[in-house]
């Protein structure tokens, strides 16, 4: 124990002293990039495909779960190869260890030239070469700084033997796995955060800009600027050649109408698209409103909302929904105004 502590202390002393020499690495512009193939996820191989909007993750309120996780990157058969280390995000775990310390010196801890360090690190990776485990690495959402803060917390909470790289048994999700490893739920959260619900455009009859009359039904319908039932999938390749994925799906939207006055009769049997006026002025629309008083205080506002139910399922058979809150309600809304006149009696 004494030997270990002395070794640690000596290493720290050298590392701390040499830490003054690495500011150039620390001065990189923020937010941190994640190397090749990474964009909005740092040091991750997660891909989101389908009806997705990657920019959505840039909003601070869009993603409420912890914005970091650990991801399996290398199989035990890719722990070490002759000639290591050759710092690289790919290749093997040994090379990744050295590459990452150059990318994130603050997260990795200060590191400098220590006699025998390369050989010592190589020993660790050599010892696992060919093993059945996987090497896990931290990854995070690359928007703002919260992902990095999260990764810091996670890495230091896990207290991995190689600090930001750990050799553990393969895991493919499942409930309550320790260490916040990527699983179907995390992938589902990422897919949900990026899910692009289509904007809606509201139509009425009488059309917008034309006045309506008291007791005359206003028909309401909508169009969607995109797939009516959007879906997207987040997936991550695993070291064994398989893929872990989660797909988020939506039900057909339910459209509803609200107005800015209580002097109205609403028809909220709107389905997914509302009811387009078909030429029968005497008919009651399934979706629309009849105003019972003129809009003497200014035009009435008709607000139309489309609401979806969003579910997820993953490649291991797990599934679930997204509670609101914390997730924002899966809705899109549009509005229009209408001036309502008093009907003039004709004698």
């Amino acid at each position: 124990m004494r030997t270990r502590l002395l070794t640690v202390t000596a290493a720290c002393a050298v590392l701390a002293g040499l830490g003054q020499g690495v500011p150039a690495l620390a001065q990189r512009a923020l937010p941190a990039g994640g190397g090749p193939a990474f964009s909005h996820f740092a040091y991750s191989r997660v891909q989101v495909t389908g009806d997705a909007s990657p920019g959505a993750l840039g909003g601070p309120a869009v993603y409420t779960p912890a914005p970091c996780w650990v991801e399996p990157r290398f199989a035990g058969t890719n722990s070490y190869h002759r000639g290591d280390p050759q710092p690289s995000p790919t290749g093997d775990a040994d090379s990744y260890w050295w590459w990452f310390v150059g990318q994130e010196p603050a997260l990795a801890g200060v590191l400098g030239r220590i006699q025998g360090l390369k050989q010592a690190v190589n020993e660790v990776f050599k010892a696992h070469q060919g093993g059945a485990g996987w090497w896990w690495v931290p990854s995070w959402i690359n928007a703002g700084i919260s992902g990095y803060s999260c990764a810091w917390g996670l890495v230091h909470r896990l207290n991995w033997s190689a600090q930001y790289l750990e050799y553990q048994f393969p895991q493919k999700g499942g409930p309550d796995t320790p260490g916040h490893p990527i699983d179907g739920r995390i992938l589902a959260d990422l897919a949900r955060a990026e899910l692009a619900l289509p904007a809606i455009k509201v139509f009425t009859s009488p059309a917008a800009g034309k006045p309506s009359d008291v007791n005359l039904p206003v028909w309401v319908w909508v169009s969607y600027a995109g797939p009516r039932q959007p879906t997207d999938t987040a997936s991550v390749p695993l070291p064994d050649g398989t893929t872990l994925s989660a797909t988020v799906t939506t039900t057909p939207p339910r459209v509803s109408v609200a107005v800015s006055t209580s002097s109205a009769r609403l028809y909220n049997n709107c389905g997914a698209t509302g009811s387009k006026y078909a030429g029968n002025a005497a008919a009651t629309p399934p979706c629309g409103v009849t105003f019972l008083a003129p809009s003497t205080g200014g035009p009435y506002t008709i607000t139309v909302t489309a609401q979806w139910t969003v579910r997820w399922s993953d490649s291991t058979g797990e599934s679930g929904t997204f509670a609101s809150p914390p997730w924002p309600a899966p809705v899109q809304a549009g509005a229009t105004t209408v001036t309502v006149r008093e009907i003039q009696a004709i004698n």
Partner: protein
Amino acid sequence: MRVRRAFLATAILAGVAACGSGSAAAFQPAGSLSPAPLQAPLSGQAGQRLAGYQFPSDVSIDFTTPAPADPARRAVIDGYRNYVLALWAAVLSHGKNGAYQQRATGNALAFVRREVARYRTQGTTVQGTIAYNDTRIAGVYFGTGADVLACVDSSAFHAVNTTTGATVGPALPARLTRYLENVAEGKRSDGTWFVSRLAVYPAASTQGARCR
């Protein structure tokens, strides 16, 4: 021999980990191995002190948001405030006050060093009031990482000529007259927090809009 070498390897890796994590030994971002805990005032008024450094009476670093009542969250805010005080102590002392080395690492440390260098080479110092408003914790992750936001108002903070005392311009670049500061913090094994990463967003930007 094989066992001994493996032990050495593990120990060195553990040592690296310990240096960074603060779990086996207190993490020292870039300086000495045994920093004494630094006591700093949390309210920025004239005459504030930091680690033996007395701020000039014409400099005020104002933290206008009350500290959280919860001790754990207060410690996170303290980590940020202490970093801010250390930053300006370093600038005002022209680098002689080195408290920042225990308060920052990563690009936050680089930011302090750049500011110190800027004021050292230009023969200028800072004067006036800089206010840190609406400071809040955006998230605490796994108990050891945190994310803090603050709106910084440097409109009354000026660069002045150290010889003549004449104002020569804003203390910070013009685009940072008002800005959102976002820092990542890490927790040491002694329970104190330090800034590990820094990002600034001018109030004119989308991200910094809340600070307009």
